[in-house]
Structures are given as C-alpha cells and as structure tokens.
C-alpha cells in the first residue's frame, strides 16, 4: 500500500512541469465544419461482444468464493434468482480484464496522498489486483478462523456473519487488504452486475429490471407521459434486444 505524503514545493513544481510537457503531444485541435455534418455509413459503437463461456480472470477456486459471496448479497428468493444465477460473477470476471479492472481510464501514478473517504480510492492498485488480493485474504482468514474450511463451505448464517464483519472493518484481513474497502468494491461490482445491461454479462434475462419494472434501454416516453397512474405497458429491453424481437416470446 502507498505511504501518505504531503505536497512539497518541489513536488508541486515538478508535477506542474510534467503536466505541461505531457499535454503537448495530446493536443486536440478544434476543427471547423461547413456544409453537411460529418457522417459515416455503418457507424456505430456497440458494446463489446460478450464472451459467453469460460473464465477470463478468476481461477476456478476464486469463482467458487466469489459465487458464494455474491449469492449471499443477492440470494435467490421470490423477487429474483440469485446474483450468480443472474450472471453477476460472469459480469465481474469480464470487467476485471477490461478498462475498469485495469484502471486504464484512471490516473494511477503518484504522488499518493491519504485522501478523505469522500475523495474515493487513493492507491495505484487496480480493481483486478484488489479482487485477487481480497479473495485470497478472505480465504486465509476463513481457513484460520473457521476450522480450515473454505468460505463457500460455511453455512449461510456463518457467511453472513463473516461478510458483516468484513463490511464493518471488524476483521483484519492482513496482507495490506483494507476489509471495509474490499467489501465496498465487492458490493459495488455485485450491484453493477445485477442491474447493468445484460450486454455486459450479468442481469440475465433482465431479471433485476423485471423485478423493478425498469423499462431498460428506452429513451422516449411521449406516448405514455400523460397516462398518470397507469402501469407502463412495455417489457424491459436490453441494448442487445429482447426475446420478442425474434419470436422467442409471442
């Protein structure tokens, strides 16, 4: 983990000089457009094609642990199937090998200051590194404190008790893993997988959207905006469509 430092005159000046230098090659020039607006045939920015089978980041042991965690956060009940049944583990696995997992859109170079909680995560560690380290630390803690068992082998109540203690920071996971911060990442990614568009691997069959009555990837409600007190009649639709398009539901 990083060592908190305070800004010095030298550091501020060198940072300013670095920013000035690094901005030169990346300058984006404004351009004038006259006549028709720029337009290209076949132009679209679809989500990356989802790889349906196999694991791209998690090991099979990690899949077992993550599945057990996710299914306690979102258990199967009358409202929806469980988190893992909805593809949440698949979602997290695919995210870890993408820009989010690699922090490729975040500035992750130093200097690293110990920020306030409102300033978010302040560390060079990527979400992929944090999941890997966090799952390993959790399994070490469970093995040491729960008679050598793995997390997935615990009873549901035991799992909940461990997760609650991790969430509250009552457990020291060791190895530099911040238990509260790890739980926050796990919960965030689990909710994302459950509620995000099925195009990204989770929310299978739009289960969470059906649960909520969320209409999905729509953007025009003029035909319904005046129908006060009436239920919105259309089922949810994903970026990749819905079964009715292909006659799977008639």
């Amino acid at each position, binding site marked *: 983990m990083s060592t908190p430092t305070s800004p010095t005159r030298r550091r501020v000046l060198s940072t300013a000089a670095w920013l000035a230098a690094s901005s030169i090659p990346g300058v984006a020039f404004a351009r004038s457009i006259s*006549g*028709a*607006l720029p*337009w290209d*045939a*076949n*132009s*679209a920015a*679809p989500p990356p094609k989802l790889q349906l089978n196999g694991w791209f980041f998690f090991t099979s042991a990690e899949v077992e642990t993550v599945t057990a965690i996710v299914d306690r956060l979102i258990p199967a009940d009358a409202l929806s199937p469980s988190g893992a049944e909805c593809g949440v583990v698949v979602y997290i696995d695919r995210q870890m090998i993408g820009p989010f997992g690699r922090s490729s859109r975040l500035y992750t170079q130093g200097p690293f200051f110990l920020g306030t909680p409102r300033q978010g995560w302040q560390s060079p560690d990527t979400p992929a590194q944090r999941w890997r380290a966090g799952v390993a630390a959790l399994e070490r803690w469970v093995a040491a404190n729960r008679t050598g068992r793995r997390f997935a082998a615990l009873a549901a109540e035991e799992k909940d008790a461990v997760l609650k203690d991790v969430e509250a920071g009552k457990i020291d996971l060791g190895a530099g893993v911040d238990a509260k911060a790890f739980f926050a990442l796990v919960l965030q990614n689990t909710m994302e997988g459950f509620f995000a568009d099925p195009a990204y691997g989770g929310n299978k069959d739009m289960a969470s959207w059906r649960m909520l009555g969320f209409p999905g*990837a*729509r*953007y*025009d409600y*003029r*035909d319904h905006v005046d129908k006060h007190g009436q239920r919105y009649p*259309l089922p949810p*639709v994903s*970026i*990749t*469509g*819905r079964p*009715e*398009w*292909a*006659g799977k539901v*008639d």
Partner: protein
Amino acid sequence: MNPATFLLALAAAALAPTAAFAGDVDQADRIGRGAYQAVLGDCAGCHTAPGGAPFAGGAPIATPFGTLIPPNITPDRDTGIGDWSLDDFRSAMTRGVGHDGIRLYPAMPYPNYAKMPEPDIDDLWAFLGTIAPVKNDVDANQLPFPFSIRTLMIGWNLLEFTPKPFAPDAAQSAEWNRGAYLVQGPAHCGACHTPKTIFGGDDAGKALTGASLQGWWAPDITAAPTTGVGSWSKEELVAYLATGVNGHTIASGPMAEAIAASTSKMTPEDLGAIATYLKTLGPSDAARPTPLAASDPAMKHGAAIYVDNCSACHGGRGEGSKDLFPALASSPIVAQADATTLARMVVIGSQGVHTAAKPTTPAMPSLGWRLDDAAVADVLTFVRNSWGNAAARVTPGTVAKLRN
C-alpha cells in the same frame, strides 16, 4: 454555381489563352445560360467526384454490365475534352458518338440529352469551355469483355435509342410541356427512376415507376397514389426538389446528390413545371394490396422491434417529426415495390441532404449491429403494413445483400 464562382469562371475564361471568345458580350450571356444547362443536366452529379475538382471526372458508377468512371470534361487537352470541337460535343450529346467517332456508353444519358435543342447544347459547350482545365486521366471503360467493346453501342443504339428532339403536346399547357421536356430531356429523371430492359435501355411502358440503382431503389415518381408522388401537392414536390426536405420525407443517397448539385439550383418555374408534369403521369399501382394482419408473426416481431428501436424518432404511430424525422405512416417511400432503400436505411444508416435552405442534415443511425437480417426484415414488414401502408413483406435475403 454561385455568383462569385461564376465571376471567377468568367475571369478565368478572359485570362485563358484558349478562350478565343473572351470579351464577347453575347458570349458572356451564352456562358451564363450554359451554366444553367449544366445544372439542368446535372453534369457535376456524375463528372465531379466527391471532394474532387469540378467536372474533372467522377466516382465510379456500378452498372449491371460493369463499372464505368465518368470522364474528365474540363477543357484539358490531354485528359479532358479540350481537343473536342463543338460538332464533337453536339454529336456526343445527341448521338452518343464523341471525338474521333468514339462510342459513348448510355450511362452518359445521351438518349435524354438528345431531346435538347441545339442552342442549349451550344450554350453548355460555351460554359464547359470556361471551366479550369484539370489534368486528370480517367480510364472510363472498366467494363468486362465483351461489354468493353465500345462499338457494341452501335447495335444498342439501333435497339434502344431513337434520336429525336422533344415533341411538345399541343393539348397540354406550356408549363406541362416544359416539365415534360425537363424530365424526359436534360434532367434525365428516367436514368434512375425508369426500370431497364435486359439491354439496359429504358422500359418505356414503365417510365418513372421505380428502379434498382447501385444498392438503392429509385422510387416510383409517377402520380400513383400509394407508391408515387400523387399524394404530394405541387408545392410539396417543389419544396422537395428545391431543398431536399418537405413535410413527408428527407432526401438521401443518390437523390440527395441530384438535389444538391442540380434541382436545388433550378428556377422555381422549372421545378413547378417538373411537379406539374409528374403529377399527371398515370397511376402505376392499379391494385392496392391488403396490409398483412397484425397477428402475422413478422408483424408481431416487427411491432416489438419498432417500438424499441424506431418509435423515439419516427413516432409511436409512424408520424415522424416535421422536417427532422420522416413520417412513415401513409408513406409512398415506405410502400415501394422494392425495399432495398429501406433495408439500407436500417442496416447502414443514411444522412439527409444538405442544401442552403435545409442545412440540418439529420441522419438515420446504422442499426446493423443491433438487428440481424430477420429482425430488419420483420420491422420493415411491420412498417410497410401499418398506419395506412400496405406492401409486400420483406425477406431476410433482401437485407443480407446490404451487409459487407
């Protein structure tokens, strides 16, 4: 041509040593009239490549017989028509025979230009002489054997071409006759909108009833009420030709090019004449088809696809949004016999024409990544059989042809 460009062209003509007629006041009038003839004939539509020098050679044209490249018609002596005589030009325009007896292919619409009176052709020649010469060697003939043999066109002309000037109909008004002349003559509307015989000539019995064209469908422009322009008022037709946009639709594709380069620069009187003439052409769709039942599986799938993908812009009942998103309800464009253009809109997308009067250029996004061939076919079948439309169902095969 805007006035500034025209003055520049005149100045260039006055300075150019080859411009023997410099200083002749009558000649200036002829050049001005000739510039308008070039608008009527849409010479630039084919002979100017996108972003290229004016009249210095165009983008390749795919014909059923192979590819042709519109040649350089600037007065460059080596690569253009700088060594042509007026007689050569008259012969090319009215007989399809160019300099040194070379046979032109009828992709150059000389069967239409043959209806032009000689003074108009001479004016056009005077104008072409004022264009800045551009050295651009175009190998026009890219056709495969045996179509690459230009003398074949002697036989084609015997079969398909009767050179004769426009014959006015004394029973019709002067405006109607002007419109008929423009449509049949220089504006060569039938080059795209008239179905072709197996030899590539106009199928005269089906004039202007719609035809296939380079991956588009040039629609029926007769007065047919469901597939033609019969439901458009004369003013709406004129607005479409002048700006590319009217209350019903927005031009795109090859017609957008024709509007930008040609019809938007025609006089209101000529556009009114064209509209008057087109609205008298007999309906070609005698029997109005019955729309498919809403219970048809394609209609049910199509309705779901429409509401999720199309309704935000085109409206829950296909009403569109005036001048921005074309209406699909009761639309002759939607009801065309051939759905190629519709499938193209959905799979590839398209951009509306840019004219001075309508500069917005709203665009249809490409949905080819989101909808497979069957889904595109079903949503088009739904649109073609809803809200007052009735037309044949669309098959996935029609859509597949538009994929790479």
